[in-house]
């Protein structure tokens, strides 16, 4: 709890607000319209005049606070509170509602049935059929929701395009698998022969295949429709194997395969998740694919709810190569580096060397991904993401950095873990070109974009939206000398409307100006020495990446909380609720007491109440966190 409060104090200097203050604020700015018999928008302030309402009407409190924070309320024409008052009010409400909710104990949120996303589908087909081919290339990409990931149940929509592709890909995958030795052996565990009818063999095959495809035991009644498909194909004079494959095609378009289903909890109370569902939660979290035999076996023995077993599984699953899929998907969406393949790539004409060098671009892309995985594999401190004595290196990255790295002699083209020399300026995520590029324009760096990137991706405190009708910056007036970006931004911050946010955003970006768009180090730009000095709102002065790292390390609680939010949201595949933030509190406190151990974070997530339990019906009223 302390951490949460500290978070706001650290971020906004929030002290001394009380319930009475909040009521005074509401009376001053809202009461005029929101009272009497016909209050505006049907909302009457009298609904929330007791402290108890923070618990019983938490959703109302949060939604009105959001509107105030966003500047939607009070409406145009009404007296508007100053931005500091708005924020102080909003932050107080957030903290107070949170405190009330957590006092009531942790309640798991509900997990909707969801289809496998594109990557999960590809990995699952790969592991199910034991074939090494990305068959999902032609599937549409998924959008993202929740905490910003494409595995969020709420945004995994289904289109006619999907159903068509599923039908086609099922045929493609089974045809392909039939020709591969390993896949063929995996599927055809029985064949007709003396004393074995084709139907008996098909039944044996389906009895093995379907539980794997559906990620749980199946009943005889569930096998029946697929056996019927086999029979129908036989009737069409299809050979035995083709008939089996036809039945498997059916299984691959079944909702039992395409969706992650957790059988309904019809009681009103939360309950521990079914073993097989838990096995899937684990494997889709840390692999992005179906459970393997070990997990299925533990589920069959009923051992997966044991916290010690769960912790053990974190280690085992991480060590498997499949956890690269997790590292890639999580890291690229957390840091937004997936966009490097699109609009955000450095301009090909301006940075021709990079554009031409596919290996270097690949090394740049994989550096944060592999770094992320190593931090967890080696169980380092989470502080490593902010500053580190190691990085992921290759010969090409070494040249890009202009450093001498102790690369493994025979592996200079393979990205691997290397120590960094003293004062390398390459420690932590902020020394990585992928991060520095994705927070730049394709053709120039931007302290605003980089600052906003740090606020959002590192600290979890994104800047508020720009106010409506921002006056356009009239830059470069006739007769004046062109200004540098820094000078223009200084001008920007002279306008109090802009300054309220930009003085919070820009300093972080200024400190990174020594890195160009591609993440290369530069001492000057256009003949002028780089000025990487910066000053925060509270007067803290710092300069360059080293100074920035220290500033971030001083705020590591914010960082750790943000990463915990992100990982928990990814693990649960949904947006976090108010109740989930209580889980996050507990995890962050535990991390703080244990040297920010990376693996502990994953262990705490998989043993947490929302990960291991299933909400009852009707699901507890969920509150959106923000």
């Amino acid at each position, binding site marked *: 709890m302390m951490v949460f409060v500290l978070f706001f104090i650290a971020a906004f200097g929030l002290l001394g607000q009380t319930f009475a203050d909040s009521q005074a604020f509401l009376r001053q700015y809202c009461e005029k319209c929101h009272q009497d018999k016909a209050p505006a928008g049907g909302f009457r302030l009298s609904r929330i005049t007791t402290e108890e309402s923070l618990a019983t009407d938490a959703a109302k409190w949060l939604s009105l606070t*959001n509107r105030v924070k*966003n500047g939607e309320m009070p409406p145009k024409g009404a007296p508007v509170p100053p931005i500091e008052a708005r924020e102080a009010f909003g932050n107080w409400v957030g903290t107070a509602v949170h405190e009330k909710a957590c006092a009531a104990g942790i309640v798991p949120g509900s997990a909707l*049935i*969801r289809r496998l996303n594109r990557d999960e589908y590809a990995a699952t087909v790969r592991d199910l059929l034991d074939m090494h081919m990305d068959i999902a290339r*032609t599937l*549409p*990409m*998924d*959008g*993202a*929701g*929740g905490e*910003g990931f*494409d595995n969020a149940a*709420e945004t995994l*929509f*289904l*289109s*006619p*395009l*999907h*159903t*068509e592709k599923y039908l086609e890909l099922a045929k493609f995958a089974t045809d392909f698998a039939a020709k591969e030795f390993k896949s063929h052996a995996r599927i055809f565990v029985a064949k007709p022969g003396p004393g074995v009818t084709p139907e008996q063999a098909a039944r044996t095959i389906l009895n093995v295949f379907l539980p794997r495809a559906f990620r749980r035991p199946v009943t005889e*009644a*569930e096998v029946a*429709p697929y056996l*019927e498909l086999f029979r*129908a194909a036989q009737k*069409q004079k299809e050979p035995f194997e083709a008939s089996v494959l*036809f039945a498997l*095609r*059916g299984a691959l*378009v*079944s*909702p*039992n395969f*395409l*969706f992650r289903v957790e*059988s*309904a909890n*019809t009681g009103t109370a939360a309950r521990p998740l079914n073993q097989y569902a838990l096995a899937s939660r684990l494997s889709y979290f840390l692999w992005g694919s179906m459970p393997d035999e070990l997990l299925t076996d533990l589920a069959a023995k009923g051992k997966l709810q044991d916290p010690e077993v769960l912790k053990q599984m974190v280690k085992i699953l991480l060590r498997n190569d499949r956890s690269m899929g997790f590292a890639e998907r999580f890291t690229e969406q957390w840091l*937004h580096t997936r966009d490097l393949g699109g*609009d*955000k790539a450095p*301009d090909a*004409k301006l940075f021709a060397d990079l554009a031409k060098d596919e290996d270097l671009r690949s090394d740049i892309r994989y550096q944060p991904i592999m770094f992320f995985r190593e931090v967890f594999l080696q169980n380092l401190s989470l502080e490593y993401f902010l500053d580190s004595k190691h990085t992921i290196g290759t010969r090409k990255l070494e040249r890009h950095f202009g450093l001498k790295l102790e690369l493994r002699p025979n592996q200079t083209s393979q990205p691997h873990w290397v120590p960094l020399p003293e004062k390398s300026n390459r420690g932590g995520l902020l020394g990585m070109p992928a991060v520095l590029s994705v927070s730049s*324009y394709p*053709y120039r760096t931007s302290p605003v974009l980089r600052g906003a990137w740090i606020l*959002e991706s590192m600290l979890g405190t*994104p800047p508020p*939206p*720009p106010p*409506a009708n921002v006056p*356009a*910056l*009239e*830059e470069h007036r006739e007769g004046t000398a062109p200004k540098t970006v820094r000078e223009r931004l200084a001008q920007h911050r002279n306008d109090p409307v802009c300054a309220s946010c930009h003085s919070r955003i820009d300093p972080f970006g200024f400190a990174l100006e020594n890195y160009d768009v591609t993440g290369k180090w530069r001492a000057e730009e256009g003949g002028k020495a780089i000025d990487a000095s910066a000053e925060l709102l509270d007067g803290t002065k710092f300069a360059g990446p080293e100074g920035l790292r220290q500033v971030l390390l001083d705020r590591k609680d914010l960082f750790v909380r943000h990463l915990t939010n992100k990982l928990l949201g990814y693990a649960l595949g949904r947006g976090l609720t108010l109740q989930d933030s209580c889980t996050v509190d507990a995890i962050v406190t535990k991390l703080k007491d244990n040297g920010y151990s990376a693996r502990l974070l994953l262990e705490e997530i998989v043993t947490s109440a929302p990960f291991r339990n299933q909400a009852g*019906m009707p699901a507890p009223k969920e509150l*959106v966190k*923000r």
Partner: protein
Amino acid sequence: MKTGLSRRVMLRGAGVGLGLPWLEAMAATGAKPPVRMAALYMPNGVNVDHWTPKGTGRDFELSKTLSPLAAVKDKLVVMSNLWNANSIGGDGHYVKEAAILTCVTIKKTPGADIGNGVSVDQMAARKSGIETPLPSLELGVTPVAIGVDAVVGYTRVYGSHIAWSDATTPLAREINPRSAYERLFRAASGQSDIAGKMDTLLLDRVLGDANRLRGQLGTADKIRVDEYMSLMRALEQRVQRASAGTQRTWKARVPMDSKAIPPEKPADHAEHVRLMMDMIATAFQTDTTRVATFMFGNAVSNVSFRFLEGVSAGHHDVSHHAKEADKLRQYQLVNQWHVAQYAYLLERLAGMREGESTVLDNSMVLFASALSDGNSHNPHKLPLLLGGRGGGRIDSGQHLVYSEDSPLANLYVSMLDAFGAPVERFADSTGPLAGLLKGG
């Protein structure tokens, strides 16, 4: 890229030599060609100084940005002063762009309770979708934007979809030209009787399995399985419609050329867009579908336009011109390029004969942006063009100027009327769009 060009030429030729028999048969029976509807969406607004034509009514002069449309000017309607009242507020992009075809206010959410309306194209597809192998075609050139825009609090799903089959379901887009082509080809050529039968059987059994699963789920989950089942059922029906044999009720108006396969990875943005225009033209010509949407980019798209002579930045960057002369100049060039792609599609459709008329005569192709001036995220005076004569219903060759802030939804009421799927109201419409339809 030479091969790309030759493929395009082949595609273009596809209908001409091969398509006559069916077409003539159609002409002989006196059946009217079907009406098609497409919407092309351009992100980031326009340089308003060079958009609006001079003059009104039939006597108008194309502006600089609209100059690429000279050859099809008499089949074009330019509409000025319409706006989407429900897209005001919220934020600068998502609220505007997600609602360009729905005209409702989207729900502000990182994803949990997404909400929009049914888009005009999907209203049309509800009628025509059961008559063609594909209910509608959703195309784009850039993948879905990932993540939640934490600054404004909207999931980027909103900025990546303009076609919504219902309030909670955005439709996935195809961005790979080859996949799009293959999909059209498969749909248009159908399959053998046996293969169709087997697919039908397979889907039937799977639906049985889904139904069993449905019985074990809670309410919220049931809704999702219901969605799955209705889509699978629709697929089953489409398989039946397009298979050879007695169930077949649809035939391509013009066969597709199996050799005209576009590349999987186009050489650049420009080629990519052109190939997708070709896909719409082919789909309409063959009658594989009668409804299509295309997104030139997602909301806030910052695709680099440095491939254009005189442009040095990305799309979103130039739209935030800050009234700087040079950026405004670049902004106009980018707008004009988009209009030229639109003109290319209209001209292609105009070149496809269909009895006495052309496919363009029997189509209506909307070009729209959800903002006027991108710098100020202005949702008033939207840039809107409608090409084609909608089967002869549209009174084309005009610049229609309305009183300020007339509802965009009125245009959709009229388009749905011309399409043959009339509605009383569409979102906040107040009636049909005066002067658009003949006698209207």
